[in-house]
């Protein structure tokens, strides 16, 4: 793996860290959820109404308790993932309510789309897990959406996935369902198997829904991403250092709460901070500022000794065009080369998280493959890799195409594109397909050829029984 580079000096890190602690101590954070307030009171923090003022030493001590890395367990142990250290974990986009088609059409996302994206992630060698809320399946009732989504991940793939954080009850449902899959609550407490996304409401708030989710995961020892999305210029200051200080304060407050509830609970420091488009007020994510926030967050995660979430194949484009490509590559590359471990939104996102696109998924999958290859860097460990002998054998003026050394090594040393076109002009011009059109053919082919890994029928039965029972209760 390549060494990760820094975007902040030690002095800058300290300055921002101190700024964040001052925000937490003197301005405070609003937690709307009473059980969370009780936790802070019990730990001797100053509380006024729902606003909590955190002591700087207390915050540092609590954050210290969070582990530097953890293993997330899949139903197929080959897909277990270590989150932290040098590792990078890719997965599909999260939470988009719309699907944009190859021809520029827009529609509500459905459960069928959900299953398709899980399958595409299951089939991809670049997606390490199948993610969570890969789209918002708007054709499924709210009350049971979390169950249907979890089921899709369970039966369509054997990779790790994410659970609901939408309130205490739904969070607990996903955790219990995962326990059924893995053989009990005791098993997943020992070997965490479900991770969720908890977001602050910037500036300086956490709402009931997310805090309920946070408490369920913390109580049961399941990992979670604590993330802040500062829209610099609207929900946060227009300066990079100010926005980063605000984001950092929010994430530290969330991590502190998790460690108060259950010291040692695995957490991931999350950032999706970016800028506001000052002409429309929209979030804008396909830009160098987002890349900088992402890289700075990775550095802060190293500073605090926790894994990091950030970045992705992020763009503001509405279709799979050049903008979608160059923006996504920039943010995913920055995230991956500066030390982000958990990359939500690696594949599929268009228009600042508003939509998923099948074609974009395939483009991002290609970008992910390219970046993963880049991260491997140079292998200089053996004489074989240094290739002196073959250079000597060929000598001046020869070629390497017919050398055994070439045939043996090119497949592992070279990235092999699945989507990019490397033909001659004549070859390409037979069909003259652009990336968007090729991507459309590609995802259809992948879906048609995908067979989900089998799930033990006895476990499948238990999973389905759990979902049926809870669905009845929830739809009553």
């Amino acid at each position, binding site marked *: 793996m390549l060494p990760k580079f820094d975007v902040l000096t030690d002095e800058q890190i300290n300055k921002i860290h101190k700024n964040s602690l001052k925000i937490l101590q003197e301005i405070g954070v609003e937690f709307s959820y009473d059980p969370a307030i009780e936790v802070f009171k019990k730990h001797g923090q100053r509380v006024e109404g729902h606003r909590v003022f955190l002591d700087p030493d207390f915050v540092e001590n609590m954050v210290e308790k969070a582990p530097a890395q953890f293993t997330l367990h899949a139903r197929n142990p080959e897909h277990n993932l270590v989150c932290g250290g040098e590792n990078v974990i890719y997965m599909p986009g999260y939470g988009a*309510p719309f699907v944009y088609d190859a021809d520029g059409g*827009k529609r509500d996302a459905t459960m069928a789309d959900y299953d398709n994206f899980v399958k595409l992630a299951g089939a991809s060698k670049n997606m390490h897990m199948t993610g969570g809320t890969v789209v918002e399946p*708007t054709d499924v009732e*709210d009350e049971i959406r979390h169950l249907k989504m979890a089921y899709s991940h369970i039966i369509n793939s054997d990779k790790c996935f994410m659970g609901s954080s939408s309130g205490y009850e739904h969070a607990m449902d996903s955790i219990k369902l995962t326990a059924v899959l893995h053989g009990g609550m005791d098993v997943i407490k020992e070997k965490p198997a479900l991770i969720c996304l908890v977001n602050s409401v910037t500036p300086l708030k956490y709402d009931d829904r997310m805090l309920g989710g946070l408490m369920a995961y913390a109580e049961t020892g399941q990992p979670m991403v604590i993330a802040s999305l500062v829209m610099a210029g609207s929900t946060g200051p227009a300066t990079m250092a100010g926005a980063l200080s605000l984001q950092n304060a929010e994430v530290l407050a969330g991590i502190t709460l998790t460690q108060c509830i259950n010291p040692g609970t695995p957490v991931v420091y999350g950032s999706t901070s970016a800028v506001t488009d000052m002409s*429309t*007020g929209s979030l804008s994510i396909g830009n160098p500022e987002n890349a900088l926030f992402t890289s700075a967050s990775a550095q802060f995660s190293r500073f605090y000794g926790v894994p990091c979430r950030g970045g992705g194949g992020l763009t503001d484009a509405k279709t799979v065009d050049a903008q979608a490509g160059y923006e996504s590559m920039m943010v995913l590359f920055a995230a991956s080369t500066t030390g982000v471990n958990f990359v939500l939104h690696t594949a599929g996102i268009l228009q600042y998280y508003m939509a998923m696109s099948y074609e974009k998924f395939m483009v991002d999958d290609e970008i992910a493959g390219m970046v993963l290859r880049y991260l491997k860097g140079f292998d200089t460990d053996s004489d074989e890799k240094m290739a002196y002998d073959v250079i000597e054998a060929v000598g001046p003026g020869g070629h390497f195409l017919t050398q055994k050394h070439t045939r043996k090594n090119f497949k592992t040393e070279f990235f092999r594109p699945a989507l990019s076109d490397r033909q001659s002009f004549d070859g390409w011009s037979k069909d003259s397909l652009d990336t968007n059109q090729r991507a459309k053919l590609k995802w259809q082919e992948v879906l048609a050829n995908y067979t989900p890994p089998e799930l033990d029928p006895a476990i499948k039965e238990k999973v389905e029984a759990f979902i049926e029972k809870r669905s009845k209760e929830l739809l009553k």
Partner: protein
Amino acid sequence: MNPIFEEIKDAIVEGDEDLAIELAEKVVAEGIDPVQAVQLGFIKGIEEVGAAWTSGEAFLPDVMMAADAMKAGMDVLEEVLAAGEGDGAYEDKGKIVLGTVEGDIHDIGKNIVGALLTSAGFKVYDIGIDQKAEDFVAKADEVGARIIAASSLLTTTMKSQKVLVEYLDAQKLRDKYKVIIGGGPTSAKWGEDIGADGWAETADEAVELCKKLLG
């Protein structure tokens, strides 16, 4: 022309809320014609900002701060205007009640819509975040609004927009108000599904929509 009108206009263009209040107080204290102060000062200022916005020279902070300054100054003048002081009369382009629906605490998009509507000459009553259907309707009834605008950023709170329309139906008030909706996960189709009178994707489109509905 009283030079204070030019000063008011500049205060709006600069988005200087404190100065707008100070000048409005001076208008009241010195018995200056309040209708002229509105037309030659506040409206001139907000129109200038609105034009700069349309041509892409002004950005959101410019428009939103101008709208805030205008609202603050106009609040000071409200009493003398209501008392019918001054020559002629001041009339807004229509009253709109604006808020974020129950269960949702996001308000940036809503605030942007409010500012642009204000800069377009509408009188906006922003009731804030996490508002029940009855709160929207109570305010609309109180101020005589013709449009109720409801925002939602979450897929889980969109249904509160539907609740609002249903509430108006149940109260037999549906014909009295135009209901418009917006927010990230909403769509034209969602607007049609729940029986809203309109949907807009952006703040600019919301202004056009209101002009159309009240035109």
